[in-house]
């Protein structure tokens, strides 16, 4: 601490450039992170049947994937589940965020905060097994085997991902605005509808997108909860890996990657906007 102060006084600040080997370590980390993804994307354009030997450029695997009805169904299922889960999760998260930021501190508020964020802390495999057992008994009792289980399971673990950006937005929002609305004769519902909700919208959209992305690539919980014939894209791909592997999987992965990148870019634009225009 004292040394740092002395360095600051001399006008020198800590610089990573002076650390020996730092650049090398950083480069290795980036290579390990991105080289496999780059390879995956490259081989999705392979003309041959292998994911290891390059035989020329082609986009035929994209067409093969598109024309594969099993892939089509899995993709549609993934989108339905992700959309429904994102919608439910962002609604629940919005209500939870308001309850945890716009109320007077009450006993157990921290406990509630932890409970909302449970899926971030409890190992996913535990939740998966728990849901499997829980839903199995409901299936026996009701006979219902539709997508509802998957939607509910996804919505549940997506809540914290939607909750965090919404809560951040709410906390940065001046609560005097809601007081001003009440002062100007707005009922609590009108104040929410006309003032809080429009100002919160970027946070809610960002939260919904994050939830969508998280739901889209979930494997573990889906694998445990799904009924027969309810493969989503990720579980379909997992199933493919057990058989002969072709660049079709690479093509589907690349498509998912692009979709995710687009959604995350929008997410970052929305959340950065919040800091640029502090309300």
């Amino acid at each position, binding site marked *: 601490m004292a040394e740092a102060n002395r360095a600051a006084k001399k006008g020198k600040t800590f610089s990573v450039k002076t650390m020996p080997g730092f650049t090398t370590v950083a480069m290795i980390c980036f290579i390990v992170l991105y080289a496999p993804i780059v390879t995956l994307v490259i081989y999705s354009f392979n003309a041959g049947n292998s994911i290891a030997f390059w035989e020329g450029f082609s986009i035929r695997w994209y067409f093969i994937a598109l024309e594969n009805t099993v892939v089509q169904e899995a993709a549609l299922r993934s989108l339905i589940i992700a959309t429904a889960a994102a919608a439910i999760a962002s609604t629940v998260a919005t209500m939870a965020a308001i309850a945890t930021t716009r109320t007077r501190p009450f006993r157990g508020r921290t406990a509630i905060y932890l409970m909302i964020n449970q899926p971030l802390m409890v190992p996913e495999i535990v939740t998966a097994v728990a849901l499997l057992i829980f839903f199995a008994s409901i299936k026996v009792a009701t006979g219902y085997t539709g997508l509802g289980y998957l939607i509910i399971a996804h919505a549940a673990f997506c809540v914290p991902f939607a909750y965090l950006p919404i809560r951040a937005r709410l906390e940065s929002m001046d609560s005097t*605005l809601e007081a*001003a*609305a*009440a*002062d100007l*004769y707005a009922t609590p519902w*009108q104040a929410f509808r006309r003032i809080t909700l*429009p100002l919160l919208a970027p946070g809610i959209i960002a939260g919904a997108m994050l939830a969508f992305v998280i739901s889209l690539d979930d494997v573990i919980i889906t694998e445990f909860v799904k009924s027969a014939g309810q493969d989503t894209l990720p579980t379909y791909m997992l199933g493919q890996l057990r058989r002969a592997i072709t660049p079709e999987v690479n093509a589907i992965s690349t498509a998912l990657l692009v979709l995710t990148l687009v959604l995350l870019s929008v997410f970052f634009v929305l959340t950065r906007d919040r800091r640029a225009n502090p309300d």
Partner: protein
Amino acid sequence: MAAQEPAIAIEANRVSKVFGSGQNEVRALDDVSVKIRQNEFFTLLGPSGCGKTTLLRMVAGFEAPTAGTILLDGEDITATPPNHRPINTVFQSYALFPHLTVAQNVAFGLEMLGKPRKEISDTVARMLAMVRMEQLANRTTAQISGGQQQRVALARALAPRPKVLLLDEPLSALDLKLRKEMQIELKRLQTETGITFIFVTHDQEEALTMSDRIAVMSAGRILQIGSPEDIYNRPSGRFVASFIGESNFFEGTVQGVKGDTAEIRMPSGHVIKARLGKGKPEGSVTFAVRPEHIRLEQFGIEGTIPAKVTRTVYFGTDTHCHLELDGGERLVARLQNTVGGNAAYDTGMRAGVRFDDGAAQVLID
């Protein structure tokens, strides 16, 4: 109640507010009672933390008193939520809705009251004209300056024609020149609309220039209520005398009381006449004299108190002359500068100090 008694708009009746509990207990308001008249420009003046904003927030309905009641036109509104009180607020931060235009901001209250469309657009146009913002009606609030935001906040709060308008330090974010303009503007709006204004500030000059009456607050209590002249010329205690304007304080012993004047012997042996506030003081008392109510004469003139000039500070319009009396007391006299300057008294010179008639005020502490 006498027939001449002016009608009361807002009454706080023995209001207390306690935040926290146990060791963290903070008594923001301590048994405060005040009656604010209709069509009055009433100011709550005090340093930060004196409870003035808490009292305002209670009148608005954002805060519930721990004890006591708030009355509007004689009706108990203590438990009425803010959206059911015909009282509007101009917030310190303005709290304009950032996603709405200037005109939409002003229209908000009228829309919530369910007024017809035509009436809303007419009122909004009239309000914007009144605060001279009609040119910028379609701007968003991020596109206008601080002074303009202030005007929009005023128009928005006045548009629903509230019975009482609350202003929470609305000028504190403005620069000096704009602040002076808005002081005049606020007073004009109050006179034009005839609405009761309750204004909260820690700035004594704002309070003196705009108010019909001022309540000086400190540590959760109201110390004195009165017109600006009352408060300035007849402060009840040491806090009021030093918080509003500047004062010199002296100790002395009461020798005799005649009507509302007391003869007080100072430690130097000189006897001066001082006005009495409430009560009949005896023995040792404190009295205050404003720096501008002190005259300097030549040393040795009959009836003056001998003193030595220790320092002079030039202030443009006047010169502050720091003096030490022969009794050891220190004081500041403010001497008006004239065309010829004011070099008559310089550091180290001897002079005679004379208090203007009625300049000395006995304080009750």
